[in-house]
């Protein structure tokens, strides 16, 4: 069954590699994304994880939620650590010190670990061409330390270090485009995903694992705590992000773009923005500005996908 695309919940891997009982917030879509990623990867996987929400909730000594080999080292270096795991095992298998086996080497980090502090190590690992997957769980701020802005926080969002006030709209800069930065490394596979679209997500993880060389996955992970929405709304907001074209789902295989989901109909952006506490200070005019930014970003992706 592994060779076919899965479109039925019943056919999804039953084994849980991320045990329940972890300490994630209610409604955390990031840990849901993580659970789906691990189901798609299977047991023969080694994960190196950056410091952050997923690390903290899953590994308080002497407990662990991980049913696969897992290593946490520091905040910014999961991509370098996984480079080491891959290089070490590759060398040992080649030299006959270790039985040959196909193993998925996966680095994971939040948007701060990816777009800010770990950008250098990630760029280095992608450029060196390790057979690895990097997964960015993007919840659009430093949620673990208390909702501080990152370079992945979208324009207009209020965070504790980009607070909205009389003299500020909140986050004054535009969201750093990490998938495009990954594409610029000429890696064979880059994709965006969201756990509100679980089959699309798992299929992309499987493809990333199959393709030799580095792959980059950027997963929008709704954070009810940081986005200031009710915990039971996380899945809906993930869908809204995609259906309003705020977060397009696409993949780039060997430089060729393909939108894997085209919203029909496209929902008004207001539906996505208005219910979130982090955007509640925005005016109609602000919404229009954000919409025009969003449209120009989305059209670029559409154009690149249509060119294929």
């Amino acid at each position, binding site marked *: 069954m592994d060779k076919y695309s899965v479109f039925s919940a019943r056919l999804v891997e039953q084994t849980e590699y991320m045990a329940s009982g972890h300490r994630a917030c209610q409604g955390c879509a990031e840990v849901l994304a993580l659970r789906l990623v691990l189901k798609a990867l299977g047991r023969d996987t080694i994960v190196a994880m950056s410091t952050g929400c997923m690390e903290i909730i899953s590994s308080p000594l002497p407990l662990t939620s991980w049913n696969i080999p897992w290593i946490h080292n520091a905040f910014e270096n999961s991509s*370098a650590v996984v480079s080491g795991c891959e290089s070490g095992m590759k060398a040992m298998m080649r030299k006959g010190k270790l039985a040959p086996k196909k193993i998925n080497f996966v680095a994971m980090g939040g948007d701060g670990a990816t777009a800010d502090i770990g950008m250098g190590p990630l760029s280095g690992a992608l450029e060196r061409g390790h057979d690895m997957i990097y997964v960015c769980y993007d919840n659009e701020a430093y949620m673990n330390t208390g909702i501080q802005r990152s370079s992945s926080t979208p324009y207009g969002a209020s965070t504790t270090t980009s607070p909205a006030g009389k003299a500020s709209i909140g986050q004054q800069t535009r969201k750093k485009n990490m998938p495009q930065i990954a594409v610029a490394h000429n890696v064979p596979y880059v994709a965006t995903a969201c756990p509100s679209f679980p089959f699309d997500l798992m299929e992309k993880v499987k493809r990333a694992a199959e393709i030799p060389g580095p792959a980059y996955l950027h997963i929008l992970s709704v954070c009810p705590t940081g986005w200031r929405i009710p915990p039971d709304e996380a899945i809906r907001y993930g869908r809204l992000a995609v259906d309003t074209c705020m977060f397009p789902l696409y993949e780039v295989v060997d430089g060729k773009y393909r939108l894997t989901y085209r919203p029909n109909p496209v929902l008004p952006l207001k539906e996505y923005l208005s219910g979130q506490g982090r955007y509640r200070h925005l005016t109609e005019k602000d919404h229009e500005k954000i919409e025009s930014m969003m449209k120009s970003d989305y059209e670029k992706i559409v154009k690149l996908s249509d060119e294929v």
Partner: protein
Amino acid sequence: MGSGRKGVEVSIAMADAVAQADVDVIAAYPITPQTHIVEHLADIVADGELDAEFVPVDSEHSAMSVCCGSAAVGARTFTSTSSQGLALMSEIFFITAAMRLPVVMALANRSLSSPLSIWNDHSDVMMVRDAGWIHIFIENGQEAYDAIFNSFRIAEDPDVMLPVAVNMDGFILTHMIEPVEYVDNELVKKYIPEFKMKNALHPDCPISMGCFGMPEIYTETQMNREVGVVNSYPVIIKAWEEWGQLTGRHYHPVETYLSDDAEYCIVTMGSFGETAMEVADMLREEGEKVGVVKIRLWRPFPLDEFRKAVLGKKGLIVIDRAISFGGPGGPVASEVRSALYNKKGAPVVVNYVAGLAGRDVSRKDFRNIILEGKKKAESGDTEGFTLYGVRG
């Protein structure tokens, strides 16, 4: 490579030793003066003489991170750095020891910026003194070559499982051409058999490494690290003993020269030791009862051996190669003073800091330091330290 005596640059000899140790992964980032080591390793790998992954990383921070990943899967792992590189990787340097990952590093000691300087002193290593690594100081090319084998043997011992840094003075040692006696590969294989890590990351045995510790458990993890470093001591001694049996070259945590009947001893670490011995010879001819005590093992600190070597002497003249700004003395002198405090027969300790950023410390300078230091000791002027030869 072949065994036998060769005239070779010390960096090259060290790289050859790493290749003979059959490492699996080398993570390398260029920084003077360690560069020749990894350049030569790159050559060896490119020529197919060593089957290893040479990972040319994006920074020293990533170098140490790659080493952690590689050692965590049970691969034999080597890296090398200096100065700013060590400063940049220092975050991961500490984690490597805490996670008990047996990485071996050649640390070509170099001063820290600023002002920028590529030359030698010990300010870089002193910055990471308390990380939980094993630190060995060497003083010539033969020792550099031998220390690589000793270090893998110690680091990978199941009772140790700690990273080891081989400290050598940048340029003063790294760039010298010296005669080095190579051992044959069969001897190496016997001395350091294939590394089989007990708890390596592998899908067949899923474990979690690097978990976080709440206050209820953090203290215990630090005790574990402390016990690990202390317990490495007998393993280090045994590793050196066996090396001595195999090669005839014997190493000890504290080494002495003309110290048995000496009234005053010079205490050094690293390449200063060679000059100190020559100067001791000179002063002996002048009738001065002077000896040399060299600290080879910096961590774990060989308290008993050190005390044994110096208790009963009149005075010690400790020559440091780093400053602890605003502190009671150089790092070595502080250690020495605290090792002797409240001990019966403890010599007085006079401290000099010399040779910062590669400033030459000649035999004449050593002579001055010893004679002046002796006077200070006799007059009770033993507080703090003197920065030798400083102008202005």
